[in-house]
């Protein structure tokens, strides 16, 4: 038995699995919350990333970074609902190529965000207002945009990709 198979076996029939698939309203409610979460995450992160990438310069930098808790809230909602989706149908998600690439992109976006918080954000207050951000900040902004929109698209395409 592979690792994936044993994880699937462990989840199936467990308490969380039974709750998610147990009544008809749980899945659609989780989907609605997942869409709300993605709106908050993407809405906030797009503004931050476009400012970091230098594509919108009119916004005040310190104001922009204060949008990040909203992105954090969206991410929290989507990790929670996402884990519940996985527990609801582990056999389908674990072998789905679209889902696997999506998770890889989430990790990449996470590493990129960590880089932002450690290296970029502490410097933001020293930048000249209205000027182009440093090259590293622009790279982090573009990487973040690319990875999160990748996550968004692959998530939507899970039913259509790599299900065999």
């Amino acid at each position, binding site marked *: 038995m592979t690792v994936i198979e044993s994880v699937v076996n462990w989840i199936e029939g467990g308490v969380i699995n039974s709750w998610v698939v147990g009544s*008809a309203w749980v899945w*659609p409610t989780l*989907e*609605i919350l997942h*869409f*709300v979460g*993605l*709106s*908050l*995450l*993407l*809405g*906030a992160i*797009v*503004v931050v990333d*476009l400012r970091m990438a230098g594509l*919108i310069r*009119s*916004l*005040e930098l310190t*104001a922009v970074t*204060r*949008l990040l808790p*909203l992105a954090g809230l969206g991410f929290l909602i989507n990790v929670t609902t996402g884990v519940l989706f996985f527990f609801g149908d582990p056999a389908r998600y674990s072998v789905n190529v679209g889902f696997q690439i999506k998770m890889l992109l989430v990790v990449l976006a996470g590493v990129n965000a960590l880089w932002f918080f450690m290296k970029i954000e502490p410097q933001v207050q020293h930048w000249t207002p209205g000027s182009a951000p440093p090259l590293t900040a622009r790279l982090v902004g573009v990487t973040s945009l690319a990875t999160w*929109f990748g996550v*968004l*698209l692959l*998530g*939507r*395409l899970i039913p*259509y990709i790599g299900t065999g």
Partner: protein
Amino acid sequence: MAFLVWLEQTALATWVGESLYGYPFLLSMHVTGLALIVGISSVINLSLLGVLPVTARDVQGSLLRLAWAGFAINALSGIALFTSQATYFVTSAAFLSKLLCIICGIMTVAIIQSRCRSNRSIGRVLPAFGLLCWLAAIAAGRLIAYL
């Protein structure tokens, strides 16, 4: 009804409903547009409610253009998706509710924009109503597949 039947037989509807890539491509566009229009207007609405720090000047500029771009993507992808099952969608309560919520949400964005431009006060009712409209639009949209 004859118009809707005709719509379902157009080349566009056939491409959406029967080609390998049509439907997933449009769904991808639709979720991208959703993230922009709902996401950006939520940032704007939460700022107007005092939760986030974006100012009225920001709201008028690039942010609003981005929100409208999202709406344009979704109007176009939405119309294309609609053609594939037009006769079904007009009978779906969830779809009709979604449409109503979008009209209300978009009107909220437009009113906030015009008030920002003429420096009139916006208050808290409009942004709160806007947030509610988008939440309801998402919920109704998801439920189309279930009801």
